[in-house]
């Protein structure tokens, strides 16, 4: 029992640290990718190639003056970024980061909890994330913040439906909600055991999920809740210092978790081609698999940024049109088609 607790505690600590590390360096990557896509150099003053930039940014956020507006609701004002950060971190719990390690006869799975309703848990936690934005925007007592919060909640609720429906088709195929089982079903691939990643059998579902993930993370082209050109800063207009930092950080953690979920659901998670043909022992395969998973995640984080500097922001009515009139019907059709394939 004690060893079980220690193993889980270590795993939680490691995943927490990795999540924060990846989120911190996403901010750096964001600025670098933006710079390279615009033929610039980007931050390169703090350390070699500017790799200490996230530390400098974090330092700046902590040192800055913390302003809580007089007219705001103090408790909710502090609660908003806390919830945003908390829920962003919680979603990483059910993601299978690797297969299993065997150390001294004991088998350890590289996942904090293997919930049998894993994907449902992710959706539940992401839905709570809206509260952080809503509470923050509401408590600021500022018109721009409120508008941003309203936009955020309307957008996230709308796109959650499309996202959920796109997942149903996938669940109909796999017959399980557990993220680990979904990953195991995609094991193998090219090699002896012919098996495809889910993206091959569910391309439409993948595209819908990807678009909805962009909307859920408030990333361009769906960054209407915080568009600087219209709403000053959106829901975090009144925030300063580390509370603003938490909101921005939560966005990057969400991006990381979304990339992990996309990789797990549609791109085979920690599986990689030829994994059963290498003739290596399980531990080595597991470690390579984890590295491969992080490679996939890194690609999707890059993809998020790549899209940001390619596609301009939608108008709000276009956003709602896309969500309700295109993505949701498309997801429903996708479910029907998947069902038909399941019968025949």
């Amino acid at each position, binding site marked *: 029992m004690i060893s079980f607790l220690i193993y889980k505690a270590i795993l939680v600590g490691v995943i927490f640290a990795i999540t924060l590390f990846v989120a911190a360096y996403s901010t750096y990557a964001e600025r670098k*990718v933006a*710079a*390279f*896509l*615009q*033929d*610039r*150099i980007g931050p*390169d003053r703090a350390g070699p190639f500017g790799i200490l930039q996230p530390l400098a940014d974090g330092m700046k956020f902590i040192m800055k003056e913390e302003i809580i507006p007089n007219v705001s609701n103090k408790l909710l004002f502090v609660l908003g970024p806390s919830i945003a950060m908390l829920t962003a971190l919680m979603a990483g719990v059910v993601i299978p980061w690797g297969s299993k390690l065997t150390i001294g006869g004991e088998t350890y799975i590289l996942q904090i909890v293997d919930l049998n309703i894993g994907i449902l848990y992710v959706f539940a936690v992401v839905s709570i994330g809206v509260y952080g934005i809503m509470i923050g925007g509401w408590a600021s007592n500022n018109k721009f913040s409120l508008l941003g919060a309203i936009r955020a909640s309307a957008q996230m609720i709308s796109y959650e439906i499309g996202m959920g429906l796109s997942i149903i088709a996938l669940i109909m195929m796999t017959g399980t909600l557990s993220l680990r089982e979904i990953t195991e079903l995609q094991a193998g691939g090219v090699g002896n055991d012919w098996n495809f990643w889910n993206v091959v059998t569910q391309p439409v579902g993948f*595209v819908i999920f990807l678009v909805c993930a962009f909307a859920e993370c408030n990333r361009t082209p769906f960054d209407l809740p915080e568009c600087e050109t219209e709403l000053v800063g959106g829901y975090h207009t009144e925030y300063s210092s580390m509370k603003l930092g938490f909101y921005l950080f939560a966005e990057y953690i969400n991006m990381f978790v979304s990339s992990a979920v996309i990789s797990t659901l549609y791109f085979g998670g920690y599986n990689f081609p030829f994994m059963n043909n290498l003739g290596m022992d399980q531990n080595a395969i597991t470690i390579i698999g984890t590295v491969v998973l992080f490679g996939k995640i890194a690609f999707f984080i890059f993809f998020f940024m*790549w*899209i940001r*500097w*390619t*596609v301009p922001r939608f108008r709000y009515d276009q956003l709602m049109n896309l969500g309700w009139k295109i993505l949701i019907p498309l997801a429903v059709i996708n479910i029907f088609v998947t069902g038909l394939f399941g019968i025949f």
Partner: protein
Amino acid sequence: MLTNRSKLVVKKEMTFWEKIYLPAILSGISITIKHLFRKGATVRYPEKKREISEVWRGQHVLKRDEKGAERCTACGLCAVACPAEAITMVAAERKKGEENLYREEKYASTYEINMLRCIFCGLCEEACPKEAIFLTDRIVSTDYGRGEFVYGKDKLVEPVDQRIDVSKRQTPEVLQFKKLKQFSHNK
């Protein structure tokens, strides 16, 4: 119409392929990814300096003559010529015993150029009858306050032991021009 690049804007119905956005987005991301591998135009300035021309118009210098006396005689032609009105000066009379400091009987006791106003056009250099002011290839450095950008004689006059070479600015055409009797003031 002059450039032949104007396009007539037509608000037409989008076709199905245009309506689903995805092909357009794909072509868009293929354009942006090309820029990822393109070499940027940025120059990392303090470490690496851009190559500049020999007749680059940068920070001014007030020249001294061969004996080390200031050439400027505070005639004010540079201030009159200056389109940005960046130059101010106060003239003073040379005292006895200052012949080694100032070349003529009249000199500038203060001479200030506001580098924030200056547009580095070089008209002051052209106007100067005494070949006293020249623009050099030095770049005016940054500072925190506006006051620091008003350069006085301490920053403008060249030190006796560190002469600043402006012979590059004296191109053959310029020398030819200065040989003309009707323009030569410096005899």
